[in-house]
């Protein structure tokens, strides 16, 4: 397995292939800053929950915002395989706030994001990936490695994989890679 590109996004920093990308904002506003700088023309971004925004931006930086590697074309992604520890708990909590007793107005716009795999769907739609999308709930990023290794066969040779976590407001972490099986 070879890592083509690697990204780490925290609430205060962005590291792409080991190099710092300077940012001014922190927390949820950091993701909006990155959206404005690198995407800008997909208003649906603002409907997404934080987990989806995080994975969407990380995927964008991995796939689009850099020079193609020497001697290789921009790869076609065959699979998006992400994982985290707390599923969609941040957005689940936001949805719960719309169904409190005595103030019951369930929000379909929030309910649609109460599944962790929605982020993989958002990435697939934007990059038109019709391969596999899978989401796992695990105790640590290490536990994703055997799953990815057993998924990447000849059919799925290039994949967007990694950890995409958002447990509460202004609290998220992504560590994702674009990899290929060689």
């Amino acid at each position, binding site marked *: 397995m070879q890592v083509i590109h690697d990204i780490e996004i925290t609430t205060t920093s962005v590291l792409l292939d080991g190099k710092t990308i300077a940012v001014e904002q922190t927390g949820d506003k950091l993701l909006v800053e990155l959206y404005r700088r690198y995407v800008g023309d997909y208003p649906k971004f603002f409907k997404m929950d934080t987990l989806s925004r995080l994975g969407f931006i990380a995927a964008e930086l991995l796939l689009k915002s850099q020079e193609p590697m020497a001697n290789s074309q921009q790869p076609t992604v065959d699979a998006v395989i992400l994982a985290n520890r707390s*599923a969609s708990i941040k957005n689940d909590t936001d949805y719960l706030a719309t169904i409190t007793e005595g103030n019951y107005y*369930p929000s379909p716009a929030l309910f*649609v994001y109460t599944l962790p795999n929605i982020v993989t769907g958002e990435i697939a739609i934007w990059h038109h990936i019709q391969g596999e999308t899978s989401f*796992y*709930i695990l105790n640590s990023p290490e536990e994703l490695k055997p799953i990815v290794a057993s998924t990447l066969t000849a059919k799925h040779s290039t994949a967007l994989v990694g950890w995409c976590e958002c447990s509460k407001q202004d609290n998220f972490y992504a560590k994702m890679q674009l990899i290929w099986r060689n």
Partner: protein
Amino acid sequence: MVYCIGHSIISPLGEGSQANVQAVRAGRSGLKLHTDRFADVEPFCASLFDTPQEFVPLCVRSVEDALDMAVSRLPLAIGSLPETIFILSTTKGDNLDLLTPAQAIARHFGNPNPPVVVSNACTSGVCAQITAKRLLDAGMYQHAIVIGCDLQTRFIVSGFQSFKALSPEPCRPFSPDRQGLNLGEAVATAIYSNQQSAISNQPSWILEAGSIHNDANHLSAPSRTGEGAYRCLTDVMAGVTPADIDLIGVHGTGTLYNDDMETVAIERAGLQDVPKSVLKPYFGHTMGAAGIVETIIGLETLGKGTFIKMLSGFGGVNAAIRLTCK
């Protein structure tokens, strides 16, 4: 090769795979109108346990039931082996926590490995079986205990009502006048093994192929061209022809989009003449359990032959598996 060596379904229709198969054969349905189950929620038609269940004890009961069946083929304490992995398929887990219940189930059986939770919307139960096959084919484990479970809550029912996706009466999948889906509760377990000794010259179901594809064109409704489902079907049909397939277990939720999309995908794959089964009018949509409940009913109904189970779900994801027993 990956063999199914034990299984279990516990649902409002009965305790154990056989009880559930008999209930379906007798035409019994778990669906009924619930008017006061959850505060504020409008009346809804669903298949719910009479007594509210606790997530972990319910899953443990199902695993024990499946292990009882597996032990006749493989006289080992499969649950506790370091060669065994627990895989849980669920969308909402135990009150929104997905990993803690999986850890509790694995710990109950004394299993030393960190469990894997698959949360891929409605397709989770089929995806979890695909994950099991991959890990066993890669030789990382010898046995996989795959559990699917979701229990209905005020959270889920209110959300589906806000989507206006629920049918006010028992669902009518593929009918022109269908009005939506019904939710359901169930737990199901399928135990897979890559050990040849487990089949001991008996007819055995082999998990032959699995595939997952995204439509990549719409978040809340499956593709109108059935692209992801079509690709899953063509993947799992590799090496076989439509004449080899005895039954396709379709998703058939009873929503306008889903049933249209599946029809298109099946026709594009040339499988329109193969018999289909739809189980939502008996069990409702049991979410994380659906892919495993409906696989087990398919295998038990057929007895022998070749079975395809397909599912599609939120996030544009589709999945299919093919099993054969000769």
